[in-house]
């Protein structure tokens, strides 16, 4: 079946602009995660959804970052007033959730490379 897809694959924007990054998880996966990966670094956790609700948003760096998942499937990461330091690859992952809430394998999308000029 189809894997996790992310659009766009690349996004170039100017400082101060607003951007939206989209993630389509694997069908039936109830858990969805956003990570940010700076060049040469490991992914850094941003936010985790269980269904429609954000179960953990402790990784969002500031209030310019916001994410939604209104129907429990597609998610959008929104960044307001972009700064050059926001330039990174934004990765999305999804997983099934076993009964009891133990984590399952996370399947990652190819990421969106965001460049803020």
């Amino acid at each position, binding site marked *: 079946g189809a894997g996790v897809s992310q659009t766009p694959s690349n996004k170039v924007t100017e400082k101060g602009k607003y951007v939206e990054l989209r993630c389509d998880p694997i069908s039936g996966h109830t858990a969805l995660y956003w990570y940010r990966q700076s060049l040469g670094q*490991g992914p850094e*956790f941003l936010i985790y959804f269980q269904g429609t609700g954000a179960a953990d948003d402790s990784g969002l760096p500031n209030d310019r970052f916001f994410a939604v998942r209104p129907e429990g499937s597609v998610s959008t990461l929104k960044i307001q007033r972009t700064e050059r330091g926001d330039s990174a690859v934004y*990765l999305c992952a999804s997983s099934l959730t076993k009964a009891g*809430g*133990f*984590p399952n394998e996370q399947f990652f999308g190819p990421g969106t490379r965001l460049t803020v000029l």
Partner: protein
Amino acid sequence: AQTVTQSQPEMSVQEAETVTLSCTYDTSENNYYLFWYKQPPSRQMILVIRQEAYKQQNATENRFSVNFQKAAKSFSLKISDSQLGDTAMYFCAFGWSNTGKLIFGQGTTLQVKP
């Protein structure tokens, strides 16, 4: 706070030989998961192997195996019979038992030479 440390920024190995990538972590949790992910230049993160902390037996997946030392908080990855397709960046990751949130190490770039 949980931390994951990979002390080898770059490694190389000859095709068909064995290589071991190191990972240490710090946590006060007793129940958790550990993972190794592979990220080739295409950016697609692929799960290589996972280990439940409550299991003493080391996980094995074909040519990939781990050496999990819970008391030492060490979780190394051994790749046997290295293949050119193993060339990638490898990340060690820590996961909580009650959430899927992952904490990643800095990564090790592995080059398999023909």
